[in-house]
């Protein structure tokens, strides 16, 4: 009985008491504390002003762990995008400058935003690639619709579409300017400056070629 009533009453607070702020003479008279605060303000002011005026301020990317101004003055200064940044697409090229794309429509099928439009073309009769692969007569990406998910890059079986240009989609004047055609997409190089990719291609007739095509598999 006694125990139950004890549990009902106000509970004793358990915890470490937080000390009240020190109300020393220097705090109460206000002026020494103002002087201290002014000192800190001035220290920052002189240091940063000197570094700005003499062009000694931190490189905001490389020297970011140092004290001082680490702001990036965009657009005069830009932080380079990381290596795996998904930027504007590019169509990779073969050694002869033709697109690697085989117009299989995997990317446009995978695209959740449905921003890729491909018109496939057949190689002429007698071409060793006929029946094995096609080529894109038109390859159009609507960069306004694109959500930069990177599924197209994942879906591509021949490493023909990549998003490693390091370019972010800039705002243009009109919607037409966001419709990127095949020629433009092929003109973008990757971050390494190359229009190719590191992955090898296996042309029909080469020993590494699997020997499969649409008629014989």
């Amino acid at each position, binding site marked *: 009985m006694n125990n139950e009533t004890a549990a009902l009453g106000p509970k004793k607070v358990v915890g470490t008491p937080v000390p009240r702020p020190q109300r020393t003479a220097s705090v109460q008279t206000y002026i020494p504390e*103002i002087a201290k*605060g*002014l000192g*800190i*303000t*001035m220290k*920052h*002011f*002189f240091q*940063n*002003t*000197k*570094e*700005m*005026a*003499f*062009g*000694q*301020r*931190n*490189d*905001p*990317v*490389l*020297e*970011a*762990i*140092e*004290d*001082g*101004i*680490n*702001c*990036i*003055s965009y657009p*005069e*200064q*830009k*932080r*380079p*995008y*990381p*290596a*795996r940044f998904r930027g504007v697409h590019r169509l990779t090229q073969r050694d002869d400058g033709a697109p690697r794309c085989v117009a299989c429509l995997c990317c446009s099928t995978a695209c959740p935003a449905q921003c890729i439009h491909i018109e496939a073309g057949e190689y002429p009769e007698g071409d060793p690639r006929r029946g094995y692969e096609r080529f894109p007569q038109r390859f159009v990406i609507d960069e306004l619709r694109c959500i930069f998910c990177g599924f197209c890059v994942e879906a591509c079986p021949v490493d023909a579409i990549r998003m490693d240009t390091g370019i972010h989609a800039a705002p243009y004047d009109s919607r037409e300017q966001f419709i990127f055609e095949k020629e433009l997409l092929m003109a973008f190089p990757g*971050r390494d400056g190359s229009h190719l990719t590191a992955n090898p291609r296996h042309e029909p007739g080469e020993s590494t070629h699997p020997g499969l095509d649409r008629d014989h598999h």
Partner: protein
Amino acid sequence: MMPLTIVTFLLFVLKAFVVVMFAMNVAVILTWADRRQGAMIQDRVGPNRAVAWIPTKVAQGLALGPALAVVAGVAFVLVKLEPLPEELASRAMLFSQLGILFTWLTFVVIAGKVQTRGVQSSFDAWLYSLGDPRRIFYTGLFAHFLALFVGLALNDSSFGTQIRDIGYGGGAGLLIFSVLGGAVYAALSIRNEPRIGLRLAGLLHPAADGLKTIFKEDFIPPNADKFLHSLAPFISFFPALVVMAVIPFGDTLCFNVDHGGLGALMTTVPRDSVCAAAGSVRLQVVDLDVGLLYFFALAGTGIVGAALAGWASDNKYSLLGGVRAASQMVSYEVTMGLTLVGAVMVYGSLRVDKMIEWQQHNAWGIFVQPLAFFLFFTASVAESKRIPFDIPEGESEIVAGYFTEYAGMKFAMFFFAEYIAVVTSAGLMSAIFLGGWDLPFLYRDGLHVSIGGTVLFEQTLPHVMVVVVGALGFVLKTLTLCWLQLMIRWTLPRFRYDQLMRLGWRKLLPASLANVVATGLIVMAIVSAGPEVGKFMDLVADYTRAFVALVGLGGFIYFVVFLAKPVHKRKTLSSSSAEYAAAAGGTRSARMSA
């Protein structure tokens, strides 16, 4: 008072123009500095986008032009103004000191540039091999003292005359060489740049902002009192500007010594000479016997502008702001007036130029009336309605206070008036408490370093140089006080309304009354004490001068050492972004020179 002639009228217009331009330009600079400091203390970049691109040839001309002017001036003095035999020693000292000053300055600046930018020529490589730029500065400092002591020690011997001639010719040569060499180096180092961005450390930004506000929409609320609403900014702007008129910005220029005219400016004026009114120009817009009272009368008018703006806007927040502004400014006006009563008792005049003369003959006001300086400083920060006393604006409580309903240039005028009030109060404070144009040991005829009658060093200087250095000293003091007010603005939070009133009426006002009583008692005690005490006070005054001079010199040396200190920063490659940045030679290559 001079008789009004065409010349005096033109001089009046010129002086008024100079003072108004000074106040307004410093106010613009403060607008910039305020935002800039806010950025600097918070480790941000701040406003410095505005840039004027100038072609390389023009930039090279801007570097070479002033240098050539200096060279021409030195050559003119050397060839045309033949020194009298007794002036030769002082001229030799002057030239050698100036030569040494500009030599180390040029070398330190270029060495610092090389440290930041890297070696680009064989001269750069040689300068870089000298190491830390601070070493050059220390060497220069040593050369200064060496020249000083050699000049003092060998003044009269025959070897001394040889040394003196070397100092005369060599110092001038060094001056020409370093100024011209520095300019040529600057011109050569920018010759490959297609164009040079002139940002004036971001100073163009407030100019661009000012232009912008002129073209902004001038909005007047539909139910506002249109006339008063438009009048209010002018009423708060005008008084802030005209109070500078009674503050002298330099010593009286004498034209009537020995041979009159402009040639008199190059001669040395006797120390305690009084210029006849006819041949002198007072560097002060108006001579008013009421001096300080004029300041208080007009500074008080500024309240009307704020209160009127609050009332005429037809907005309850504006009204609250206007009422707050009126009550605050009235409260602190009382303290402001009473703190200066003590200073007026000591100086025995209401004229600001008389106060400066008293300080030149005795000690600076800050040593005579330290409490008054502190109280006046606090009250004048409150009077300019700036943080921590900005409850009339109080954006967290009443939107923007009395200028809530203002836009465009009228809004900017309120702010401009605030900054001009900062400049004028700083100017008045430097005149009353920091000696105005007086610099320690600098008298009308030159430098006299003496403590209690023992002369340590003497150097006569041309009249125009004394006046110009004094005027520059006044500008420097004013700017320092303005800067201190900005620093306070970026350090302290805002007072609550009741705290503000309590501080004004219960702390500052009694303190200022106590200051008046104490000053009265001390002044009476000293006056009735007799000549021994007066002599002792003169000695103390000399020590205050030495103190100010040493603090100034030490501060200058510390500042140069601080500026010349090279920076070493650690680089970290912590991400693929950083690797790309490192491969591109750093993100800073496109930095904004601020």
